[in-house]
């Protein structure tokens, strides 16, 4: 029987959502290909996470649980995945297009001689073979690609593929594997910079504040709306330079480049330096009292008015909507 092999990324004992998305997509394809799904999970303690992968659609989890593989190292992780491919001879290999996936996949593809389609946003089965859709020219065009050989290897863009229904009743099947865990470069320490907030680059919704807020004491208006929307908080450079918030929150040319589904710009005029970091957001809502503010030129929805009046009402509305939904 044909096999789809997926790569699951776990950090700090938790599976990344993108790993589950990849498993879900593999499950969907497996039906069309008449294949089974096996997921490679690297790192000690993977046993506890295997159930979640199975529930999401994997038939089997291949565990590399050598304690020496606790910290991510390009070399050893790539070796493990390559070995899994060599051992299982899958026809399809799917890897999430996360930082780790971006690092590992090309190396493994080269090692096993597979064609790699990176950053795919859709996969289809046609005549028993895979077809992938991937954006080009910063999303201005899409290319449909096919593989000429096997395994057909692809990295999948996070937050694009839906999670299928969970089935916790599926039987858990584990395969233990081991690999040479040595690496010439290893992580000696990781320093966390997050401040307990949702990281900007992964957020689906971002609410950003600018100088229109007049002072740091008013920044809570942005934070409240973000909380009500389950959004991450961003800021313009002016606000960061003025020391109202940390540089970590800066969206723009010299800060984070983000492309969330929804970007709410509050009191941000839309200087080029800011636009460069967020104009690829799927939907932009601008709240500003200056009708000439350039942010309105890129906004899908513009709210012309006083944000001190608008933000609290929007926050209330979002909260009400949330509680109504349960």
């Amino acid at each position: 029987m044909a096999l789809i092999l997926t790569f699951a990324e776990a950090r700090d004992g938790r599976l990344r959502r993108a790993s589950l998305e990849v498993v879900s997509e593999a499950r969907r394809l497996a039906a069309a290909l008449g294949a089974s799904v096996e997921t490679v999970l690297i790192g000690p303690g993977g046993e506890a996470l295997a159930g979640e992968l199975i529930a999401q659609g994997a038939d089997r989890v291949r565990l590399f649980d050598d304690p020496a593989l606790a910290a991510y190292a390009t070399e050893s992780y790539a070796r493990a995945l390559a070995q899994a491919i060599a051992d299982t001879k899958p026809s399809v290999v799917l890897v999430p297009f996360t930082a780790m996936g971006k690092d590992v996949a090309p190396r493994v593809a080269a090692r096993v001689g597979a064609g790699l389609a990176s950053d795919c946003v859709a996969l289809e089965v046609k005549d028993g073979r895979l077809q992938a859709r991937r954006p080009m020219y910063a999303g201005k065009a899409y290319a449909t690609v096919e593989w000429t050989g096997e395994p057909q290897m692809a990295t999948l863009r996070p937050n694009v593929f839906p999670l299928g229904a969970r089935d916790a009743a599926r039987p858990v099947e584990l395969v233990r594997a081991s690999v040479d865990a040595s690496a010439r470069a290893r992580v000696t320490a990781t320093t966390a910079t997050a401040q307990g907030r949702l990281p900007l680059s992964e957020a689906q919704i971002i609410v950003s504040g600018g100088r229109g807020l007049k002072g740091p004491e008013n920044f809570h208006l942005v934070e409240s709306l973000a909380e009500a929307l389950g959004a991450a908080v961003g800021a313009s450079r002016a606000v960061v330079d003025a020391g109202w918030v940390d540089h970590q929150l800066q969206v723009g040319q010299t800060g984070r480049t983000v492309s969330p589904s929804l970007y709410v710009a509050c009191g941000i005029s839309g200087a080029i330096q800011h636009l460069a970091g967020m104009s690829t957001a799927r939907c932009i809502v601008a709240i500003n009292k200056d009708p000439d503010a350039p942010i309105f030129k890129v906004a899908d929805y513009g709210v012309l008015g006083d944000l001190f009046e608008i933000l609290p009402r929007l926050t209330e509305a979002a909260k009400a909507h949330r509680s109504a939904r349960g």
Partner: protein
Amino acid sequence: MAMLAVVQSLLVAVLSAIAFGFMFLQLRRLARLIKSGTPGDEVLTDTPGERASKLVSFSLGHRKVKEDRSAGILHAIFLYGFFVLGIGHLEVLLEGMTSFLVAFGGRPFTYERLFPAGLAAAYHASQDGFAAAVLVAATIALGRRFAGRPARLLPRSADGERILWFLLALYVTFFLLAGPSLLLRQRAAGAATFSLAQPVSSLVAAAFTGFASPAVGAMRALGFWAHALVFLGFAAYLPTTKHMHLVFAWPNLYFFRRERYGLPPRIDFEKTEKFGVDRVEELPWKSLLDSFACTECGRCNTVCPAHATGKPLQPMKVLRDVKLNLKDHKAPLVSGAEIDRSRPGMVRADGGYARVEGQVHLDELWACTTCAACVQACPVLIDSVPGTLVGLRQNLVMMDGRFPQEATNAFKGLETKGNPWGLGPDRRMEWAEGLEVPLMSELGGREVEYLLWVGCAGATDPRARKTNQALVRILKAAGVDFATLGSEERCNGDPARRLGNEYVFAQLASENVATLTPYRFRKILVTCPHCLNSLGKEYREHGGSYTVVHHSQLLAELLAAGRIPLELAKTSDELVTFHDPCYLARYNDGAEPPRDVLDRIGVKSVEMAQSRKNGFCCGAGGGRIFLEERIGKRVNVERTEQALATGAKTVAVGCPFCMTMMTDGTKAKGVDESVKVKDLAELVAERLRTQA
């Protein structure tokens, strides 16, 4: 006695040989070190006449030194004193070496025996006067260093102080020799002790009048030895110090760079595998010569916007680093040492880093805005500092991939979209919607007078778009024939080049040259001085030679010719101050047209203290607009404060980067409601006569 004279001769000869031999060996070593640099890629020997006249006016004429008046006077005394008193020092040595003639009934060498009486008196007068002047000057110079030290003389330099002590010793002993000499001479001639030609020596002589001639002779001998020894010690000491300025300033002035100052040598990507500068000997020899021509006067530090706002960069220290590194050749020229700025003792009083000597620290080299204020300020035409720093950036960026993380976005945008903000070519004509701007590609081969080079900011920055929109309205009102490239245009590459990404610059330059080649146009018109500089001066090496005009220049010409229909009633009383873009005023000699424009549209303008060629950068140059500014005060805030100090309600600019920086500055100062930042083109367009 005779024996003693012979011994004296021998001793003077041997000591002179040692001192001057040492000096010669040192000079030879330094010359070899300088020659160890790369050949560089520019002709530095053309137009000998111009070079010689620059040499004379900057050295003997003190053209730059005299801008600081008191220091200029002191320097003139030291320089001319060196020449005039040198004649006397030679006499002392010759006298010492020929004193053995006494043993044979002769007399040692003196000029007096050569010169006619009048000339001898003039000679004595010159020595007396200059020695006294140098004594006074050295005393003042030392005093300055101990009391009320000017900021530019920080940190304290042992070298700088020691030489002044040397000068004091040299001319105190000079008078200990000249005083008794004069007394003996006057006694022999039966004249009064006081000589009008040598007033200071006469005062010293007066102190010895109570002694008999043999005693005075002994004192003279003591004075002679003291003076000769100090002088020879001085000669041996000099070549190990920064004072080799005395020797190397001359060739440095002669070999000034005309074209490529502020730039590292060209890179031939086809032939080289190592890019940029890592080791000191990878710098061009002229940049190494610069480091020896520097006497650490600190004028460059004073005008450096990075230094003025508390960054660790000091142009003078970069030169010293190059020199120290060259002399000891051990480490790479860049130091990436972790500097915890909050730890006491790490940051010195003058802002520099305590433990980084002979190496340029990352914080220093990324702080440079390539504004070239240091080049403008240098009295000996040292022009290598921005170029050296960009050379170091090249190595870090292209070999190591080490650069401030936020530059990634600019590099990526430039590489993939030809736009530092990452906006695609398809968006390059959005600014011109409704303006009916003709495209070059639609002219069917017709020659156009001006190819309007819109620039990335002009095309995609909402604020800078307004500048180009205003300009187009003026061009149309004045009936100027122009067209643009539209989506065919790419960034000129200046931000990439200045950030050290020469490869991307070369790519963009070749691409733009290829785009321009089939089109026919007389001149290129730009609203961005960085485009002006790249297209006008730096594209030649990629095969593009164009006449490029900054819009301030065209506006001034059109206004002078009366071609712009103005409505004078619109003239308001607003006070305007013009902020000079570095790449316009300094790099392209364009300080006057903007002022001409302001005059001709009838606005009242006021100058900032630092303006024209001495302008203060907005902080955006050198690609810094695409970087964060993490250390010290923000440069744009400093410059905005300078602009606000004039009382102006409008800050006029002629560069989209300056526009961003000055606008951000007014926002940071919270005056953006009352003080506006406008481009020259906008100020002119506001006064256009409305069509009936």
